[in-house]
C-alpha cells in the first residue's frame, strides 16, 4: 500500500489535505474501513501534527482513500 508523510493542513468532515515535504498537497478521504473517525482529524490539523498515511487510489475521483493514519513518532492511529 502506498504511503505519504506530511502535515494535515485542512480538514472538512472526513476529508483532509496533506502537505508533504516537497510542498505538494494531496486530498485524502478517510476510508470506510479505516480505524478512525472523522472527528479525530481536526485535532491533527490543530496540532499541525506530522502524520503517515497509508492510502489506496480511487476510481473516477481526484483524491486518495486514507486506510491508515499514524502520527509520526507515535504508535496511535
Amino acid at each position, binding site marked *: 500500500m502506498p504511503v505519504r508523510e506530511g502535515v494535515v493542513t485542512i480538514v472538512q468532515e*472526513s*476529508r*483532509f489535505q496533506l502537505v508533504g515535504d516537497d510542498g505538494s498537497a494531496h486530498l485524502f*478521504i478517510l*476510508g470506510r474501513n479505516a480505524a478512525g473517525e472523522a472527528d479525530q482529524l481536526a485535532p491533527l490539523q490543530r496540532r499541525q501534527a506530522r502524520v503517515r498515511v497509508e492510502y489506496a487510489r480511487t476510481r*473516477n475521483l481526484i483524491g486518495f482513500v486514507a486506510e491508515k493514519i499514524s502520527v509520526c513518532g507515535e504508535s496511535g492511529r
Partner: protein
Amino acid sequence: MTMHPRAADFPQSDLPGVIPHESELTAGVRIEPGRSYGFFTDTTVCIGCKACEVACKEWNNLPADNLGLTGHSYDNTGALSANTWRHVAFVETSGCGGVRDTVEAPFQSGWLMMSDVCKHCHNAPCLEACPTGALFKTEFDTVVVQQDICNGCGYCVPACPFGVVDVSPVDGKAHKCTLCYDRLKGGLEPACAKACPTDSIQFGELSVLQARAEERVAVLHERGVPGAYLYGTPGAPGATGDLGHLNAFFLLTARPEVYNLPAAPTRPANRVAPSLASGLAAVAGLAVAAAFLLGASDRRRS
C-alpha cells in the same frame, strides 16, 4: 447593491483576521442564529462560469469526480453527488419565451444555465427518513448531515425528491450541501454565493430573498420575459406535496423538467398512511379470500 458603510473600515488587502460579520459586507445580511437563511438562484443571470462549483469544492475540500467528458454541452460534473454539492446545468434549448430565444445571431445557441444545489426543504424528507438523527435542522434553518452520526444506511437518498443526497462509496456516509454551516457560524456568506460574479446566487434571510425574487419576476415580466416564475417559494411550483417551501429556490424561465427539476415534488411521508392502509386492506382481503376458500373446501368434504 451599494457598498456597506462598514466596508470602508477595511480598506487594506492584507487583513489580520476574519472580518466580524463579514456577510454584512458581502451579502448585506448579518447572520444570526434563529433566523431562516437560504439561496435565491436567478437563472436568467447565470453565465455558467462554474465559480460556484469551484468555490464549493475549494472550501469544502471536495475532490473532483465524474472525470472525463459527459457529452452534455459544457457540463462536466453531470449531477449533484457526494462530492459535487453545486452543479451548473447547461441546457441547450431554443425558444424559452423571451430570454435567449431563437433570435440570436447565427452560431449562437440558446443556453439555459442553472446552478443546482440542495434545496434545504422546510419539511425535509431526507431528515424525516434518517433513522439515526444524523440529518438535522440547524439554527439557521438549513439541513445538514452530521458525519459522525451517519451510519450510511442510505434511506435519505430515495427520500429526497430532488435526487440531491448521495452516499459516498469511499467513506460510506451520506453527503450533501451544508449551506456552508461552518461559514455561517463564523458570520461568513456561503462560498458559492460569495464567488458568484453575476449575483445569480444570492444568499440572505429567506423572507428578504423571497420578496426580492418577486420583484425580479415582476421586472422580467415588464421587460418582456413572461415565462419567468419562481420555483420553491410558498405556493409556487416546487413547493408542492407538503414540502412547505424550499430555502434554496430558483427563478426559472422554462418548465422545471427542462432544468431536471421535478414539476411537483412530494414528501414521501405523505404516502406512508395510504401505503399502510392499502397493505392492511390487502392482508384483510387475502384473509377473507382464504377463509372463504377453506370454508368452501370444508363444505365440499362434509
